[in-house]
């Protein structure tokens, strides 16, 4: 099936119905494997058992940026290619991205208190992630403010592309400015600086979180297509109602 075939919402709904049971099974398996490996991972020589927070903090941080990347591609789909499902994909992704960003902020804070002695500092990494969270809320609010989905989609697409500037700022904030946050230790030149006994559970949890996002995104896109179907049926109902001029 070509990608263009999925431009038909009915075809996407049928595909989602077939795919979701497998995606749910795969996600549950990956999460169980990730949590099992994380529970058996050794303590860090400096951070002790608090390193276990990393297994949820880092994947959620990666997902918070990845989801905005998905929304940015969808925004291009809306503005450039006018793909019928592009703004559906963007709208469905926003609350999921907001949830992952919230998890990243809260777990980072809970990790920071015993390690740094504080829940929060206004440094570049933490502040730029907080800005990302506020941008997610802004996009969600924009979708809810404009009634017409196609107009809301175009406005949200512009906001999303402008907000994409924040993603490289988050990624390289630890290199560009002085910060309490440690520099990159997995995705870096010269390879990861983490021992395999901790790296393997971390990457397994990252795959599990990515699968969770994909599953929830397909399900949320299905909901959004149904919501638009309800809207168009309500408009048609108003047209054929007795006394209407249509």
């Amino acid at each position, binding site marked *: 099936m070509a990608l263009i075939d999925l431009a038909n919402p009915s075809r996407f709904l049928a595909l989602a119905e077939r795919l979701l049971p497998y995606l749910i099974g795969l996600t549950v398996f990956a999460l169980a494997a990730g949590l099992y490996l994380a*529970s058996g991972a050794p303590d860090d020589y400096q951070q002790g058992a608090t390193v276990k927070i990393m297994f949820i903090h880092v994947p959620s941080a990666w997902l918070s940026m990845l989801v905005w990347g998905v929304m940015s591609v969808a925004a291009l789909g809306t503005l450039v290619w006018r793909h019928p499902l592009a703004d559906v994909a963007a709208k469905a992704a926003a609350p999921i991205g907001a949830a992952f960003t919230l998890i990243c902020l809260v777990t980072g804070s809970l990790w920071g208190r015993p390690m740094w002695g504080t829940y929060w500092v206004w440094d570049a990494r933490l502040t730029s992630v907080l800005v990302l969270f506020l941008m997610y809320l802004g996009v969600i609010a924009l979708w809810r403010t404009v009634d017409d989905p196609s107009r809301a989609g175009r406005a949200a697409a512009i906001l999303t592309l402008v907000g994409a500037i924040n993603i490289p700022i988050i990624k390289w904030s630890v290199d560009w400015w002085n910060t309490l946050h440690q520099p990159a230790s997995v995705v870096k030149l010269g390879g990861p600086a983490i021992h395999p006994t901790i790296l393997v559970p971390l990457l397994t949890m990252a795959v599990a979180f990515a699968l969770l996002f994909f599953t929830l995104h397909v399900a949320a896109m299905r909901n959004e297509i149904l*919501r638009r179907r309800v809207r168009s*049926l*309500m408009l048609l109902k108003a047209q054929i109602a007795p006394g209407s001029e249509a």
Partner: protein
Amino acid sequence: MSIELGPHANFILAAYGITLVVLLVLIGWIVLDYRSQRRRVAELESQGITRRSVQAKAEAKSPA
């Protein structure tokens, strides 16, 4: 198998607990939203409101 979480166990358990709550709320919202939208589509279609029915009515009204 017991997991030794050391002196900062409260922070570790709180991090995992809050993550679980946030994800459960997100999943619950998506599931409930799906049921709600399916119910609304079914209600409208049971009233005879379909895109085909509107086209048929429009054709019936048209003098041509």
